[in-house]
């Protein structure tokens, strides 16, 4: 039996505004519990929400970046449900008319081709607070610092057909929101969270019943959770059962999804337009200003990397996949480093070290300008490419500057021809047999001599010069 998987994602992207979406309280992460919630966030009697215009601008930046329809007249609605971390007993969200309508985004497939994924809508809403269940034995602790933080909920069409595509889509959105500077993308702090709607069907049949997996906060978990869910649903259907429409939770420790609530238990949210807020009206002038203020988008940057810098499709995709990486790369080449050499360093040594140590490029122990210096020390023949890799490791571990390391460790390339000649002459005099063989036509032995010279100079000899002198002496 051939199964097809249908996946749609809902991504909650926390907007980078200084203050909350409906109050003046700070959105700073990590403050002491309940110190960043004002009367409005706490849902005191009589308080009223006032829309943060910056959040609207950010939503519009996103809409324009995915070529979406912008609803020039959108409405905030109340989503009513009771929970202790929801102070008002309703969440202010957008329901019938979201600010951003349908748009699209391209995602790269393993095949190297691109796939267009539809974005159904993106709407503004406020976040709830946090319930902490494991702090006290008999109580649940509530931290309302997060209550009222602006979110942009980005809903995709059900266009993804496997976990890899879903991850590729999520990564694209993740990169985009950082490119347009509306979200810090920090998944550990919950600034970027995914819910996945997953269903399976037999090839050629209509859509199956979907399950929604909530609050996945890493790409790795997203892939695992979807694969587990697909497997679970196929098992049920192959055993003749039926999939229940429900909300499920991914447990990364047990590596399983489990039911949170069924459709029957689902809340009736009793949505209705929030009478405390006026409709959001967007005029053409504002839209034009925002469009003009948009930075170079990832697709534009990638095209430029290919067309102007002459990078391959693969390299350009790779380097533009994260704004911070593209920025890093561009700092290096803007200083004058060779494009291809720089690309290799960034995607090679740097990416590998970052990956191995699970460090974000923004927190890289080696700054772009330091890496540029390292690259230029190779170009100006101070050190060899091989030594440069050693220097990179020292820079990474000890956070010292390139020149300091080269000087301290005496790693400068030997470029004094006289000194090099005397080293080479000594090696020749000690290996007369090999000289004889070389002269008789065993030219492969050149490598042996180079090796000896490098050994004697601790790798500091300039390979080009060594070759030249050896060729002179041995001919």
């Amino acid at each position, binding site marked *: 039996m051939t199964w097809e998987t249908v996946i749609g994602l809902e991504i909650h992207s926390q907007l980078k505004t200084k203050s909350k979406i409906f109050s003046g309280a700070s959105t700073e992460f990590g403050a002491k519990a309940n110190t960043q919630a004002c009367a409005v966030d706490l849902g005191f009697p*009589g*308080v009223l929400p006032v829309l943060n215009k910056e959040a609207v601008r950010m939503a519009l930046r996103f809409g324009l970046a995915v070529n979406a329809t912008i609803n020039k007249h959108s409405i905030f609605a109340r989503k009513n449900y009771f929970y202790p971390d929801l102070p*008002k*007993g309703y969440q202010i969200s957008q329901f019938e008319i979201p600010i951003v309508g349908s748009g699209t985004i391209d995602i790269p497939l393993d095949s190297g081709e691109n796939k267009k994924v539809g974005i159904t809508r993106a709407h503004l809403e406020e976040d709830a607070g946090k319930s902490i269940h494991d702090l006290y034995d008999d109580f649940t602790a509530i931290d309302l610092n997060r209550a009222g933080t602006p979110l942009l909920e980005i809903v995709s069409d059900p266009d993804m057909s496997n976990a890899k595509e879903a991850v590729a889509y999520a990564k694209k959105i993740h990169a985009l929101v950082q490119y347009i500077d509306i979200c810090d993308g920090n998944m550990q702090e919950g600034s970027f969270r995914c819910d996945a709607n997953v269903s399976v069907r037999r090839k050629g049949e209509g859509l199956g019943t979907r399950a929604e997996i909530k609050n996945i906060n890493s790409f790795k978990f997203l892939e695992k959770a979807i694969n587990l869910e697909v497997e679970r649903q196929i098992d049920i259907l192959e055993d003749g059962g039926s999939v229940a429409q429900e909300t499920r939770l991914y447990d990364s420790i047990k590596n399983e999804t489990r039911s949170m609530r069924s459709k029957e238990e689902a809340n009736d949210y009793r949505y*209705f337009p929030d009478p405390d807020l006026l409709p959001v009206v967007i005029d053409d002038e504002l839209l034009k200003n925002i469009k003009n203020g948009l930075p170079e988008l990832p697709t534009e940057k990638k095209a430029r990397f290919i067309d102007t810098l002459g990078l391959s499709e693969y390299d350009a995709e790779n380097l533009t996949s994260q704004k911070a990486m593209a920025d890093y790369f561009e700092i290096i080449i803007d200083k004058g480093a060779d494009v291809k050499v720089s690309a290799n360093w960034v995607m090679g040594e740097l990416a590998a070290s970052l990956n191995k140590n699970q460090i974000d490029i923004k927190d890289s122990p080696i700054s772009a300008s330091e890496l540029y210096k390292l690259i230029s020390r190779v170009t100006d023949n101070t050190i060899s490419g091989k030594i440069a890799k050693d220097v990179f490791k020292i820079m990474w571990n000890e956070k010292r500057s390139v020149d300091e390391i080269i000087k301290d460790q005496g790693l400068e390339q030997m470029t004094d021809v006289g000194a090099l000649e005397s080293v080479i002459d000594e090696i020749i005099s000690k290996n007369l047999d090999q000289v004889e063989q070389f002269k008789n036509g065993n030219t492969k032995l050149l490598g042996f001599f180079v090796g000896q010279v490098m050994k004697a100079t601790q790798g500091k000899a300039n390979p080009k010069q060594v070759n030249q002198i050896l060729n002179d002496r041995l001919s």
Partner: protein
Amino acid sequence: MMHNLSIAELIKGLKNKDFSSVELTQHYLKRINESKLNAFISVTDDLALSQANEADLKIAKGDSTLLTGIPYAHKDIFCTKGVKTSAGSKMLDSFISPYDATLNHKFNLENMVMLGKTNMDEFAMGSSNENSYYGPVKNPWDLKKVPGGSSGGSAAAVASRITPFATGTDTGGSIRQPASLCGITGIKPTYGRISRYGMIAYASSLDQAGPMTQTAEDAAIVLNAMAGFDSKDSTSASKETPDYTKKLTNSLDGLLIGLPKEFFSSGLDDGVEKVVMQAIKEYEAMGAKIKEVSLPNSMHAIPTYYIVAPCECSSNLSRFDGVRYGYRCEDPKDLDDLYLRSRSEGFGKEVKRRIMIGAYALSAGYYDAYYLKAQKVRQLISEDFKKAFQSVDVIMGPVSPSTAFDLGSVKDPVSMYLADIYTLSVNLAGLPGMSIPAGFSKNLPVGLQLIGNHWSEELLLNTAHQFQLKTDWHKSTPIEL
């Protein structure tokens, strides 16, 4: 006597040093403490005296504004920092507000003196003040009668001259109906004219604060201090506020008054109708022209209101959950139990009824039939007024179909809802409306309702003031006072 003076006269008295703010405040506090009307939930003696002291200092330094040192009573629906703010509910009996409503802030800037917080129907839901957790307020004209509601405490306090003026809020008639039943002047301005920030919400799209005073002139003076845009209230209007006292003396010669035929049909008490028609004659004598108008959809105002308001309140009152402030049931065994018992025990019967109606009307499958339909009818009601105001300047009619009724006499909620039949449509259309004393029927006051087009408060106050120059009804006080 000092307490029979209007605000305009008190301002003069303070200015001429006939009395100090402290003397004035002491006089009113004494009257409040002797009052048997149950008009106050909290009397803030200490605060009032310290505010009065400060006001006197400001006056002495010549650093005062018009209303500096004037005492007032605040409906207990406005959040007052450091003072209990109950909204007439057991739910908020323990609630001390940590912040001030915008209105308090404005009053404080003028160094006015808050005497206390007035009794009201729980969360402003009611037309008789019998829904208060603190017991009903008595009508000063007849202690066996209701004062009207929901601003019943404010109306009774002003009528019995235990405060120079009081604040009120009007969602479906809660300023105008008690003003009518207690024989005082009250105005509900255009929706958006006065900030709702810090005013505990009942039905957000209908709620509007306003002054309750002895005279129209006083209402204009106080409205000047209350009105204006507030950046904390997205629904408040940025429209500039005029000086509401400026046009009080304009002549009414040629004023076009519309009488909606629907307001004079069956259900209207004969005695009330007689008083209203007599008042209209008074206007004719001042040169006004009378014209019949029709508000055909006003007959749908009650069902429309009783969908819209409960829907909004069912959501607005969700925050009262026993978690952060207010009433919490004893020993909750789990979260559901905490919610269920805190809300069941903390809310009164009428509040629970409206929450249930609203939750039902908003639920999936019913939303279109109730909420959406009500919004459409609301639009039709607005259009009726719009049409009427193309041919008249002011609409007049009764405020309430009857005079004050006996405490405990109206047991059926729907009959109680009928008490607001002439006032609800004004809120649904967001228009300004006013009640002024127009006479008596069987020794009980009868109010005349004045309804204006959007932002026509100046004309309404002018129309009311001219009537009060020709009549003395607003000067009548209950006999035992």
